């Protein structure tokens, strides 16, 4: 009975709510931009109209496209992303003024590209299940992308991590794109092989452990993660990819045993890496006592902590702090700049926004009607949550610092574009999930007249 009710329940489109929230988000973003000008120079930025107009145009365009091609999509995701992106732009502009650079303009261009890809994804991908066709293609593409920085000419080492490629003046972190491709690969693979992975195994101490022969994929993924860690010295991405893999494996098989095996593998690998590689040890040492070498290795983290403390509960106010003191304040450490100038209040608010994105994504996964959609949505939610945790945990000294960008806030084209695509995919999945079922079993029609009929409405 309840199930029948659930089937009859039709989600409302809520596009009006989305538009209202979007306007709030724009007020926050453009207001922050104006406040930066007032705080630093004592006047509203001269390009406020142009900037605000551009931002508004991008956001409204995204809204219109959603209205047209994904009318049932979750109404909360896009406004949250617009708010985050707007605050990020204002903060980058703030740091530009402190350091006399012009990265906010570039970031606005990247945002434009991101929104264009967002639109393209929604327009061309009418059903996310089409992506399942590209399981192995996207896996291969992800591996190629991950290896690109290792190539001699275009590979580029920045701050010790070899995760960049440079084509002419353009720098790009292929790992950010690989993140999305890997989610698709894992989802496609697991949705097919989940039964084999889930059912066979033996029970040890209340936990079902998988069979040895099924360990293949997990070992491959473990190897890939470790080689990223070792060859590219990129602690963050390594953690992110392996964590993503484990989450999706667990969701697909419903077996906590995989988490035990995977977790053991991860911590074992990390322990070995800690012993063998100086850069891992160094990160842990900084984490344990950043003040031991406050002017050397620990400088960045110490400055970040000082920044957060300086901000306190309500922050110094935009333009009133010294965010330029933290190296990389516009990218990995943008949260320190926000903590300093907008305070704990804003940091918690932003964390709640991130939390809401994850929550909406997992909600889409829950109501999605197909296994592939569930896995993709869960994977995207997981990768998002892990990334936020790893980077913000790092700059606030909850966990050792790894280098990842803060989604939508940090300066960085690859990350911003990839995250806009992630949001497009989530909107597509939630649109599919919330859309009313096609009326397949109308009593007045003879099912035999149709060549096909829907037999499986809800995937588990």
């Amino acid at each position: 009975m309840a199930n029948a009710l659930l089937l009859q329940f039709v989600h409302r489109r809520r596009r009006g709510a989305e538009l209202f929230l979007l306007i709030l988000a724009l007020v926050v973003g453009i207001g922050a931009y104006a406040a930066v000008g007032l705080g630093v120079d004592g006047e509203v930025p001269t390009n406020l109209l142009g900037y605000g107009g551009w931002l508004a145009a991008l956001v409204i365009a995204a809204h219109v496209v959603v209205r047209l091609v994904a009318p049932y999509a979750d109404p909360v995701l896009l406004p949250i992303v617009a708010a985050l992106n707007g605050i990020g732009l204002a903060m980058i502009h703030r740091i530009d003024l402190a350091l006399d650079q012009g990265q906010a303009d570039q970031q606005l261009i990247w945002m434009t590209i991101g929104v264009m890809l967002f639109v393209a994804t929604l327009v061309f991908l009418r059903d996310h299940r089409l992506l399942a066709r590209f399981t192995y293609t996207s896996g291969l593409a992800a591996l190629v992308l991950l290896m690109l920085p290792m190539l001699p000419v275009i590979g580029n080492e920045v701050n010790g991590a070899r995760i960049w490629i440079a084509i002419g003046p353009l720098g790009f972190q292929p790992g950010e794109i690989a993140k999305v491709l890997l989610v698709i690969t894992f989802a496609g693979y697991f949705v097919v092989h989940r039964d084999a992975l889930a059912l066979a195994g033996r029970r040890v101490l209340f936990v079902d452990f998988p069979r040895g022969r099924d360990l293949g994929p997990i070992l491959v993924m473990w190897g890939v993660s470790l080689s990223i860690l070792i060859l590219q010295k990129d602690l963050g991405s390594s953690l992110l990819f392996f964590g993503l893999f484990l989450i999706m494996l667990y969701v697909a098989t419903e077996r906590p045993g995989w988490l035990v095996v995977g977790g053991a593998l991860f911590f074992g690998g990390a322990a070995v890496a800690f012993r063998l590689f100086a850069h891992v040890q160094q990160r842990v040492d900084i984490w344990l006592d950043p003040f031991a070498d406050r002017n050397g290795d620990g400088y960045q983290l110490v400055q970040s902590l000082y920044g957060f403390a300086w901000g306190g509960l309500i922050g110094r106010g935009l333009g009133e702090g010294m965010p330029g003191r933290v190296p990389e304040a516009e990218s990995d450490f943008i949260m320190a700049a926000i903590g300093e100038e907008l305070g704990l209040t804003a940091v918690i608010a932003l964390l709640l926004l991130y939390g809401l994105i994850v929550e909406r994504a997992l909600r889409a996964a829950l109501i999605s009607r197909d296994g592939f959609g569930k896995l993709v949505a869960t994977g995207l939610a997981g990768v998002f949550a892990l990334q936020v945790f790893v980077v913000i945990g790092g700059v606030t000294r909850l966990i050792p610092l790894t280098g990842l960008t803060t989604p939508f806030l940090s300066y960085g084209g690859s990350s911003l574009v990839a995250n806009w695509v992630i949001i497009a995919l989530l909107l597509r999945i939630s649109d599919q999930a919330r859309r009313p079922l096609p009326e397949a079993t109308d009593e007045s029609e003879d099912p035999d007249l149709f060549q096909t009929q829907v037999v499986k409405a809800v995937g588990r």
Partner: protein
Amino acid sequence: MNRPIRTVSIFCMFLFLALMVNITYLQFWHAEELNTDPLNARVAEAAFSRQRGEIVTGEGREQVTLARSTEFDDQYKYLRVYPKPKLYANITGYLTLGSQTGIERSQNTVLSGEDPRLFVTRLIDLAQNQSNKGGNVLLTLDPDAQQAAYDTLLQTIGPDGEGSVVAIEPKTGRILAMVSLPTYDPNLLATHDFGEFNAVFQDLDQDDREPLVNRAIQTRLFPGSTFKVVTAAAAIENGLYAVDDEVPSGATWQTPGTTGDSNVIDNEGRFLCNPEEISFRTAMAQSCNTAFAKMAVELGPEKMREQAEAFGFNSDYLQDLSPQAQSVYPTGVDGEELNDAQTAQTGFGQFEVQSTPLQMAMVVSALANRGTLMRPYLVDEVQSAEYETLEKTEPDEIRDAVSPTTADQVTELMVDTVDNGTAFPAAIPGISVAGKTGTAQRGVEGKAPYGWFVSFAPAEDAEVAIAVMIQEAPGKEIAGGALGGPIAKAVMEAILND
């Protein structure tokens, strides 16, 4: 697959909760500690970019500004300016990014506006959306006395000389003048060009004459014969002799338990000391080493030390400047009490007795105040940015160093020393001046001695007590009376003529 998705949701919720708890701890509970970390350049920079309060001294129309912050067109917004740099450098100190010295350091919280006493001002600033302006500090220094001390000391010891003058108001402990030479220009150190700061600082720091040292409180030397007033006070206070008594003296004295010429105390040619018994007045007026050596041995090291400590030796009293050196009356040698030969030397301020100019000024200040030692102080008032008095320093009695009768008798001896003895250069016509000279041997062959001069006036109701110390005066023969006396006189006149 919904069950594991729910588990993942809970897992994600814990991730975010962990972030929120951690950041709340960092920005709320831990912030205070980080924000007061002296190595936190952010805190230093913010303080450096704030309109700091002024350091002023003097009363009414004579008030002079010693340090103020003027608007400056760079990232720090304000430049610290010292209008009378060389005259007050050892008092004000200097301000640079992240560190400060002198009053700039000891009164930093007031000047930078962080002091709790400025709470109301801060609230008003906050309400009016103004940036927080620091409070002002009013000093006790008398601009005329400071100028007189500086001019005469500089004139006496020359541009390459080293010396110090400290003047105290005996009844209150207010420090009226405090000069240390050589000096420096704090404006050069307050520059926002930190490369230039380093160059200037290195030059000053490596200068052998140590211009950055405030000799008035940081340099301790043998006080020599000026310490005889302490010995005399101990003798009278302990009932050994009175002002009109005869005391044992002699041309020379081989100290008990010693042999050889190096332990023979003489009087450097002052023949009036030669008789075996002379009057106490003559002993003081002629600065007879043999008489005071014998007196110290008769008293014993314990009583000598008690008296010295009553005057402030072996302790710190000034709270308004740091660092300072502690003046010393030796507590023993290698864990044993001083022997007679050593005690004899302390009777005229040698052996291991060492004093800062401030300490000797405190000694005569206590005698001038009929035996009561007042705590010396430099900060008269803490004021709000609008010059309202927030706190005024109340004079603080440390203790009665000697009884009033003892003080009166030592004063008599010192007045005699000015009227009929070695301290005559400090005599002021029509005013009775009490004084004592000192010319202390360094204990190094061929090196010029240190010159000292202590005095107070008017002797019967003193308004000023003074100590002059001359460490180096190139090209001049150092003698406490000849060089120090006129300086003390000039400073006393500057104060008495007010």
